[in-house]
């Protein structure tokens, strides 16, 4: 069989992208496209898994059984998202155990937002509203991303994130109708999470080295700044209805642009947190590492049992 010339592969790939069709696992793809996707999907999966921690801490303390059930189910959803994102990465040849090890030893990243602490139960609501809201802005366009398995995983992720955002907002609405103390808790949580949430969209466009190529490949559909603007525009009226103040004196409607103007987040803070110096980086990774290491004997046992069963059934078949 004659090998397909590389130039032909490239042109089929580029044609697929140009026609806005999906690249599937068995299709030829440039190595750099594959590597970029593995990096992005792994980072996304890790974010889901590490993202379980800040809210997961409140499941055992949730102040009503209804809130406990909602939060427990939400954090479980995040584990599910992690699972199907790792599976999407595996279609590109990546291995889940290897990705987990890369997360633990710092070679692969996760979203910096999860390096901030959750101080009160209001944080659960604000994370749902802001963090899941920002994730939705980022992820809805990914439902049309050029790599098929990733896009299809995102469809389900987005539906669940949307539900989570509503649950978060509904908690805050309930708290705002409660006591003065509760209203103060909500405002405090809003003050702490607003800026880190804006940073979730990544650095500004003129300082985002990987963006252009990801856009050209159809992996990424909108720039960081466009998505950040969309989030601000979506959130401002929700904050007004809720009765909280977003902590940005520069925030105002710009009639001419048809968008809200807002101040720039502290990009140095983002760099510090990304590089490992956030309030909870060490704690988050230590927890993930401990779970992985403490579970090693269980995974070994499951593998040993599976091997024994296979051997037994082979012997049974041979007899």
């Amino acid at each position, binding site marked *: 069989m004659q090998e397909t010339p590389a130039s032909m592969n490239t042109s089929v790939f580029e044609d697929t992208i140009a026609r806005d069709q999906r690249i599937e696992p068995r299709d030829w793809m440039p190595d750099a496209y594959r590597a970029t996707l593995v990096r992005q999907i792994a980072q996304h999966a890790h974010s889901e*898994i590490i993202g379980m921690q800040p809210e997961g801490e409140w499941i055992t303390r949730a*102040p009503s059984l209804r809130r406990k059930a909602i939060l427990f189910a939400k954090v479980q959803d995040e584990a599910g998202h992690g699972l199907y994102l790792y599976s999407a990465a595996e279609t590109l040849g990546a291995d889940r155990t290897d990705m987990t090890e890369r997360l633990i030893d710092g070679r692969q990243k996760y979203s910096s937002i999860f390096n901030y602490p959750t101080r009160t139960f209001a944080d659960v609501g604000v994370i749902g509203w802001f963090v899941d809201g920002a994730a939705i802005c980022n992820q809805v366009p990914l439902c049309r991303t050029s790599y098929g398995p990733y896009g299809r995983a995102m469809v389900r992720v987005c539906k669940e994130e949307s539900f989570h955002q509503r649950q978060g907002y509904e908690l805050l609405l309930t708290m705002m109708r409660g006591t003065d103390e509760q209203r103060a808790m909500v405002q405090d949580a809003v003050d702490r999470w607003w800026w880190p949430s804006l940073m979730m969209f990544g650095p500004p466009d003129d300082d985002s080295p990987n963006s252009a190529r990801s856009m050209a490949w159809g992996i990424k559909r909108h720039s960081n700044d466009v998505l950040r603007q969309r989030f601000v525009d979506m959130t401002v009226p929700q904050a007004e209805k809720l009765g909280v103040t977003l902590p940005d004196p520069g925030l105002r409607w710009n009639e001419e642009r048809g968008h809200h103007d807002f101040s720039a987040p502290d990009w140095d803070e983002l760099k510090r947190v990304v590089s490992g110096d956030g309030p909870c980086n060490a704690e988050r990774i230590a927890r993930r590492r401990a779970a992985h290491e403490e579970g090693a004997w269980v995974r070994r046992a499951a593998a040993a049992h599976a091997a024994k069963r296979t051997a037994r059934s082979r012997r049974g078949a041979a007899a």
Partner: protein
Amino acid sequence: MTDEDLYVDGDGARWAFGTGFTDPLHGIDQTVPDGVDAEDLAACCLALGDDALVSAQRLAEWCTRAPELEEELALANIGLDLLGQARLLYARAGRADGTGHGEDAYAYFRDPEDFRNIRLAELPGGDFAFTVARLLVLSVWRLAVCEALATAPDPVLAAIAAKSVKELAYHRRWAAEWTVRLGDGTEESAARMRAALDELAPWLDELLSDSTAARLGAEPAAVAARTRLELFHVLADAGLNRSTDVSPLDTSAFLPGSGRNGQHTPHLAPLLAELQSVARAHPDASW
């Protein structure tokens, strides 16, 4: 302004839970039927509700700590099922005992001595083997109880039990599969399973002699016999039986007292202190 208007994008109808959702038994005839002793019914619902809540709390402690993502999901599933059972049972208890209390009054505003869960449920989490072993015992036993209660003379309890049966069948399957994997896996996993079974054996008698649901149709001797037999079969598959006796676990060292009378180990108080911390710190708040 209505609640619906508050969901800025105007499609509040897509909410699965309305914001006014407070009564899990809403729309159901909650009258206690003639011939059913309301006190027995309330005690049964409270005891089974407390077992479920305390177990769910222990399972929630696994969150982000499971050995594999699939087990993270499974443990959360089981925890959520049990939490759901607790909520329904508390709602029924609140009607049967005449107080009209809602679920949160039972979960958040009772002290440890007022809890009626069996002590096995409150023991600290331990390792994955202990979690599997405890869940195996509790789910086999609770399944036998709920199957019997599915024909209880109180239709509300019967319906809750029937719903629980479906859930518990999965819990039992998950725990049994892991018991076999760990028992048959490596030397370390088998040793850990044996240690876990030894650890829970002294608490088993409290379960096997429990008569909480007796007057509602779950006959203790029948439940105990079935529990022993099922445990025997699972432990046999796992290579963990110590003898061919159908009492696979040595319960001779059982510990006197019962959580059903409010006699608990020192482990329940800290569990509840954590569970109740936020609710009690803000008693006038609405969540």
